[in-house]
């Protein structure tokens, strides 16, 4: 098993394992298909731990939040290989097709030191479908009322008992100009997104490897209605979004002959990412070239109660960025080393103590100790605690591209420092039986304390965006309680309640984080008939009031409230299965919530007060979609 995270079983819904020392929520195929659309950012709609928000009213991109903290603080990887980071932070989720994903593992708080120093609010690791057991042929179509169409195609082939290969293709596009909120702007940019993945797997007796290439592109145009790039440039407001991403990756695992429990894992990744984003007169261009290496030696000390992982990592990350008429280049070189010890007392008590040190060529030593412990008080529950330090090197422009959708003048402090936080958490999970079915209750509390934070200050002035480092008090308190019960065969009910208190100090004031609701809750009901032909699913997301950045100094017509309204997002889907086909029809935002006047000064997009970043609710109203999955499993030769 490469890397350390093991996928258990197939076709799982949502589960929390009681064995794992890390509090890992696993989202499997059943859960992913509950909300059939479309890409990774939309895969969390029935999940309470990850919140999804639209970033601005121009690009249509979505971002996640964990523990009430922006998605940039969550480390996102596939099969333990870095995925959404660096320049791909803004749009990386949107270019990862959901149907390629076999399962997603979500860890709150800091992750293992093996994966690097980055996870602060959480760690999301996803597994794409594997050549050994992925579908021999799979096709998916999705279409919705806004003129979005998606096609996914993939297939796996076993070449012999050791080699197998799998290819994936994705295409999606928006074809209709929509403006539901009637502000004269496209609600979604029109254009195309494409993605390809081709991977190989070799499984021998003492050696295994996985390697492949992954590429994607997007080319989208948003902004004012009726925009024609040939005639209207400079007259009408336009948003142009282009990304080109290519990477090769490999993982290798060696099992040592003379040490039966010993293994060596190697990860290599070479990546090219080029993005162009234009919001009116704001033009951003970024190029990132990256090489990543990680090595893991895994063995036992004496007996299997004592396990350790140790290794070296290396990152070479080269950036060339321009924003309007300024250019920024940097080359990050980060060698690192880690050691992680695991004490396992008959699986009942597990302690993982890890430490890693990295040396960053621009910011010096980064030292991240981490500790995770799990205790099964009885076989049906698990108490977990975690504490750890994480870092993040900010990319002020790439991380915050969506804020370019305004006339705010960007004032970025050149001497910002790495973000540095200590995250600690306690989780309690209790399982209980109702009519032979396992139900789960869990409650968790996480506290993240920032030693250093990069502030995106929208409060100082509605005409400026200040970005600077502060080491004053900044924190996130996050509380979540969730219950999932199966009261009857085929029926699953889930409810979650969340409380966030996220604040940072700047200009001497402890500010509540803008756009983060203090209260949220999620309700989900799913029913599958006993012959598994029909599934019905409904999800309600209640979102409490959010603080909005001050617009008090704007002229009266460009002022907005200091708080958003509460609202419900209701999604529902019906699936019908006929042998190898799945047909689905669904609706999103069925309560038809629309944020009115989402864009400030929409009538004067080149004026001083234009701001399309003050988003706190959907701008598009309800959506209806249809689609189908068609899959043929690989013939099992075993």
């Amino acid at each position, binding site marked *: *098993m490469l890397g350390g995270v*093991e996928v258990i*079983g*197939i076709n799982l819904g949502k589960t929390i394992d009681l064995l794992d020392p890390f509090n890992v929520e696993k989202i499997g195929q059943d859960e992913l298909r509950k909300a059939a659309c479309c890409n990774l950012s939309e895969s969390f709609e029935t999940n309470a731990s990850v919140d999804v928000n639209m970033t601005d009213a121009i690009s249509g991109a979505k971002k996640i939040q964990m523990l009430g903290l922006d998605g940039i603080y969550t480390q996102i990887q596939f099969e333990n290989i870095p995925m959404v980071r660096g320049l791909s932070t803004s749009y990386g989720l949107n270019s990862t097709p959901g149907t390629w994903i076999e399962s997603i593992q979500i860890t709150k708080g800091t992750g293992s030191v093996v994966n690097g120093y980055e996870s602060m609010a959480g760690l999301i690791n996803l597994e794409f479908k594997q050549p*050994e*057991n992925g579908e021999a042929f799979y096709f998916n179509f999705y279409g919705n009322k806004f003129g979005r169409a998606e096609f996914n195609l993939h297939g796996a082939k076993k070449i012999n008992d050791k080699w197998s290969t799998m290819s994936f293709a994705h295409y999606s596009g928006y074809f209709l100009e929509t403006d539901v909120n009637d502000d004269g702007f496209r609600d979604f940019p029109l254009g195309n997104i494409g993605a390809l993945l081709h991977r190989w797997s070799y*499984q021998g007796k003492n050696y295994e490897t996985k390697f492949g290439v992954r590429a994607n592109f997007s080319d989208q145009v948003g902004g004012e209605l009726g925009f024609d790039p040939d005639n209207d440039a400079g007259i009408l407001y336009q948003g142009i979004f282009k990304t080109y991403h290519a990477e090769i990756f490999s993982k290798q695992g060696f099992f040592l002959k003379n040490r039966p429990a010993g293994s060596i894992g190697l990860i290599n990744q070479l990546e090219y990412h080029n993005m162009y984003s234009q919001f009116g007169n704001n033009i951003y261009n970024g190029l990132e070239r990256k090489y990543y290496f990680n090595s893991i030696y895994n063995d036992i000390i004496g007996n299997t109660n004592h396990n350790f992982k140790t290794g070296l990592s290396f990152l070479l990350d080269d950036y060339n960025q321009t924003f309007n008429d300024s250019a920024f280049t940097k080359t990050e070189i980060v060698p690192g080393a880690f050691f992680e010890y695991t004490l396992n007392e008959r699986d009942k008590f597990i302690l993982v103590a890890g430490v890693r040190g990295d040396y960053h060529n621009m910011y010096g030593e980064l030292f991240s100790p981490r500790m995770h412990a799990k205790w099964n008080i009885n076989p049906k529950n698990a108490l977990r605690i975690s504490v750890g330090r994480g870092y993040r090197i900010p990319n002020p422009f790439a991380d915050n591209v969506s804020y370019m959708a305004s006339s705010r003048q960007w004032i970025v402090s050149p001497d910002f420092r790495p973000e540095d936080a200590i995250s600690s958490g306690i989780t309690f999970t209790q399982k209980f039986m109702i009519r032979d079915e396992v139900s789960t209750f869990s409650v968790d509390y996480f506290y993240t304390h920032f030693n250093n934070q990069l502030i995106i200050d929208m409060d100082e002035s509605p005409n400026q965006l200040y970005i600077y480092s502060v080491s004053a008090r900044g924190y996130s308190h996050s509380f979540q309680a969730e219950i999932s019960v199966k009261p009857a065969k085929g029926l699953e009910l889930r409810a979650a309640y969340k409380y966030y208190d996220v604040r940072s100090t700047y200009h001497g004031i402890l500010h509540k984080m803008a756009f983060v609701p203090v209260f949220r809750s999620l309700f989900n009901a799913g029913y599958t*008939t*006993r*012959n*598994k*032909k029909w599934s019905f699913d409904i999800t309600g997301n209640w979102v409490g009031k959010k603080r909005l950045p001050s617009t008090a100094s704007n002229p009266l017509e460009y002022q907005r409230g200091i708080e958003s309204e509460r609202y419900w997002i209701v999604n529902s889907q019906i699936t019908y299965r*006929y*042998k190898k086909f799945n047909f689905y029809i669904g609706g999103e935002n069925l309560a038809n919530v629309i944020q009115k006047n989402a864009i400030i000064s929409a009538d004067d997009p080149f004026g001083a007060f234009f701001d399309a970043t003050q988003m706190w609710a959907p701008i598009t109203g309800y959506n209806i979609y249809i689609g189908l999955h068609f899959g043929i499993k690989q013939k*099992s*030769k*075993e």
Partner: protein
Amino acid sequence: MKYYLSILALIILTSFNSAHAQNEKTKTITFITTAICEECKERIEEKLNYTKGVIFAELNLENKMLTVKYKTALITEQQIKEVLASIGYSSDTVVRDKDAYLALPKCCRGESSCEPEK
């Protein structure tokens, strides 16, 4: 009065009768099979759930018992067991088709472990 009573009795009797007939329209049976693993469960449930007359089929892997609810007008218990035999599984009264059994994956014949490969 007597007339009304007999009408009432008739109504009660008929409703009883039709309730009885209703019960006969569908039937739920449970019997043992030669299924072994998750792969078997998938094969059996998929085959029977898409067999005309079957309302649902559910295999309990712990005791290998198969529960089938079906419409008696469309299919019989014997026919259900024959469908099962045609994909390689025996039940308490019908012996599996030999060719279909040999065409099953190894794990469904108990020749290899059913654990998914790592």
